[in-house]
């Protein structure tokens, strides 16, 4: 009825980012680009899109940066309290359920599309979570505006039982595909490898877009500016300082 009146329903927002995840043998590798955009302007050339949910669980976020940051912080807090209460390591499905419930409650108004990955007692897990609260469980996943470019790499090169290094290379390739072929993604590649008992955050694992125009010698002006005329006016001559009788300033 409202559409008839001209109200456009919120469409699926594909946002400026490439985030991916892949399940390898005994580990999960997450990857993200580092460009944050405000419309067609690059707002941050090296932002961090991989968020901490728990020591063994991490989450890549695409969508509105404030939303992904807030929702991951909130659920990370809840998971910490849960860990203290139960005395156990957090499970990926717990993080998944807390995130999807939160997003569903907000009916898609919290614009956060997430790739959640981690290793817990039940093994390695990888999930995607959409802004409306639906989730998928996958061996490899991509989200964001660069997801098609990254998925093309996965679909042609993914195999079951990848080793850690093969996984890192595949993820790097997929993110690079997003960086170079999608305008909404760019700059560097962040990687995170989660194994049983160990999490490695490789910030700026690859920097394929360095600034090339800075001279290593520093910038020098070719010609010195000529001094034509010098005039010094001491300010004391312009202002009369008068001490008022009594307290200069009452506290």
């Amino acid at each position, binding site marked *: 009825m409202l559409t008839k009146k001209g109200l456009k329903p919120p469409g699926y927002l594909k946002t400026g980012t490439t985030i991916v995840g892949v399940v390898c043998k005994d580990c999960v590798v997450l990857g993200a680009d580092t460009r944050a955009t405000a419309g067609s302007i690059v707002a941050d050339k090296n932002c961090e899109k991989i968020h901490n949910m728990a020591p063994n669980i991490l989450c890549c976020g695409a969508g509105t940066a404030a939303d992904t940051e807030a929702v991951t912080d909130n659920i990370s807090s809840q998971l910490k*309290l849960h860990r203290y209460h139960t005395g156990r390591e957090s499970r990926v499905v717990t993080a998944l359920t807390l995130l999807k419930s939160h997003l569903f409650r907000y009916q898609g108004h919290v614009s956060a599309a997430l790739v959640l990955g981690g290793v817990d007692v039940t093994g390695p897990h990888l999930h995607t979570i959409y802004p409306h609260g639906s989730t998928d469980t996958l061996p490899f996943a991509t989200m964001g505006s660069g997801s098609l470019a990254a998925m093309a790499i996965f679909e042609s090169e993914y195999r079951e039982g990848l080793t850690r290094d093969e996984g890192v290379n595949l993820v790097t390739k997929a993110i690079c595909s997003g960086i170079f072929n999608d305008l909404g993604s760019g700059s560097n590649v962040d990687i995170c490898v989660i194994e049983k008992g160990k999490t490695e955050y490789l910030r700026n694992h690859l920097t394929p877009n360095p600034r090339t125009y800075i001279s290593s010698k520093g910038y020098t002006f070719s010609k010195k500016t000529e001094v034509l005329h010098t005039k010094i006016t001491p300010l004391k001559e312009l202002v009369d300082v008068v001490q008022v009788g009594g307290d200069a300033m009452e506290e």
Partner: protein
Amino acid sequence: MGDSQYSFSLTTFSPSGKLVQIEHALTAVGSGQTSLGIKASNGVVIATEKKLPSILVDETSVQKIQILTPNIGVVYSGMGPDSRVLVRKSRKQAEQYNLLYKEAIPVTQLVRETAAVMQEFTQSGGVRPFGVSLLVAGYDDKGPQLYQVDPSGSYFSWKASAMGKNVSNAKMFLEKRYTDDMELEDAIHTAILTLKGLLVFEGQISGKNIEIGVIEADRTFRVLTAAQIEDYLQEVE
């Protein structure tokens, strides 16, 4: 707090100006199992006796010393269930502080907030004061700290303190042995000796009937395992 029928506080002043309910709460604490804490120059140790009602109780399921944040731990004397409520609230408050300020909560702030909760229950409708005193041990930018929080909501910073049964003997012992430049290892030994000296253990003092929690310069609170306690016990022998 409480029904409309119980919107009045159950803790009321006596003619002599005392809050009798709080005095009774302190009595409840005084009849609880002994716990103590010692602040050393490079850390804090808290310990308690873990006397179970029967040999049939699975002692591995009981943990009296709890962690509140990675760098703050707590032990209680008095009613266990009351302490659980406080521990849960404190953890939540610490986490809320962290979310708001993106900073680990300082020990004094957490103690202050926990004490405020305990005070609330002495002034709200239909509730009774908590029957526990807490010893909060933490290590933050101000260094190692030890605080005691009472059912009234008052808190004090201590160099060494004890609560529960035999508290006066324990404090005398601690007063004699405490030195300002004490190191954590000495503090742990002193804590064990205090517990050993005061208490009448049915069998022997062992890793299974006392609990010890420590925090050092690495700012990570940990509860010692029974095996680690046994090692310290052997050193003390």
